[in-house]
């Protein structure tokens, strides 16, 4: 799914890297636990989260994620925005909750990361 399409579906405010709205994401991962992002995300994905701290951006960067959507109207500070900017990661903020955000994207064709085997 094109990042610009996600932005429309979520009616999200773009916080940085607008020039990359034309890039595609192939799956999504929604959670506030960075430990799980580091353990399970596999491909060029978008991170949907309500957690706001510099480790969110660094985690996304480590995992080669191309976009971060903050839910529940959360917004990162300037330092975090600068880090994302330096690395071309699109960040946006939506007033929707995590559940609604996931539902909207999923029902429009964006799949989740592969299932986790125990």
């Amino acid at each position, binding site marked *: 799914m094109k990042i610009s399409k996600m932005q429309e579906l979520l009616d999200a405010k773009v916080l940085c890297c607008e020039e990359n709205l034309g890039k595609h994401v192939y799956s999504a991962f929604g959670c*506030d*636990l*960075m*430990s*799980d992002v*580091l*353990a399970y995300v596999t491909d060029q994905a978008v991170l949907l989260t309500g*957690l706001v*701290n*510099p*480790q*969110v951006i*660094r*985690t996304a*960067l*480590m*995992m*080669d994620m191309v976009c971060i959507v903050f839910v529940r109207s959360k917004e990162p500070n300037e330092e975090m925005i600068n*880090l994302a900017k330096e690395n071309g990661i699109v960040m946006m903020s939506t007033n929707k909750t995590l559940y609604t955000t996931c539902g909207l994207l999923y029902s429009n064709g964006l799949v989740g990361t592969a299932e986790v085997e125990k």
Partner: protein
Amino acid sequence: MSEKLVFRFDVSGNDFTSAGQASVQVKKNLRQLGFDNEIIRRVSIAMYEGEINMVIHAGGGVAEVHVCEEYIEIILDDHGPGIKDIEKAMQAGYSTASETIRSLGFGAGMGLPNMKKNSDEMKITSEVGVGTRIVMKINCKGTNE
């Protein structure tokens, strides 16, 4: 790149905000050196997990990354409390992290297993009350995992 390159970082244990900075820098350096994306990704995950552990469990330490064409070696040294039962700590889901750390997005007990998964060799030496040393090696050629 015929010589071995060494990157060294002091990882502060006082300031969670900066946790992960060394790994960000290493990723940048490896990209500039032209390493394969999959190798960079494995090094990034292994080092980042280890760096965060040093900050949240050991009050900081020193991270060194040795880079040559054949392999990348990550050496993490701290003078924290040490790990009493390494086998137990290696189990997915085992964590002694506090509520505060969980609220920051970590402490699921996934880090050490993830470090093992992303490296070709991993060695932990630890002594209670003295500190922990973790060495991870990622081979750049041939088979991974």
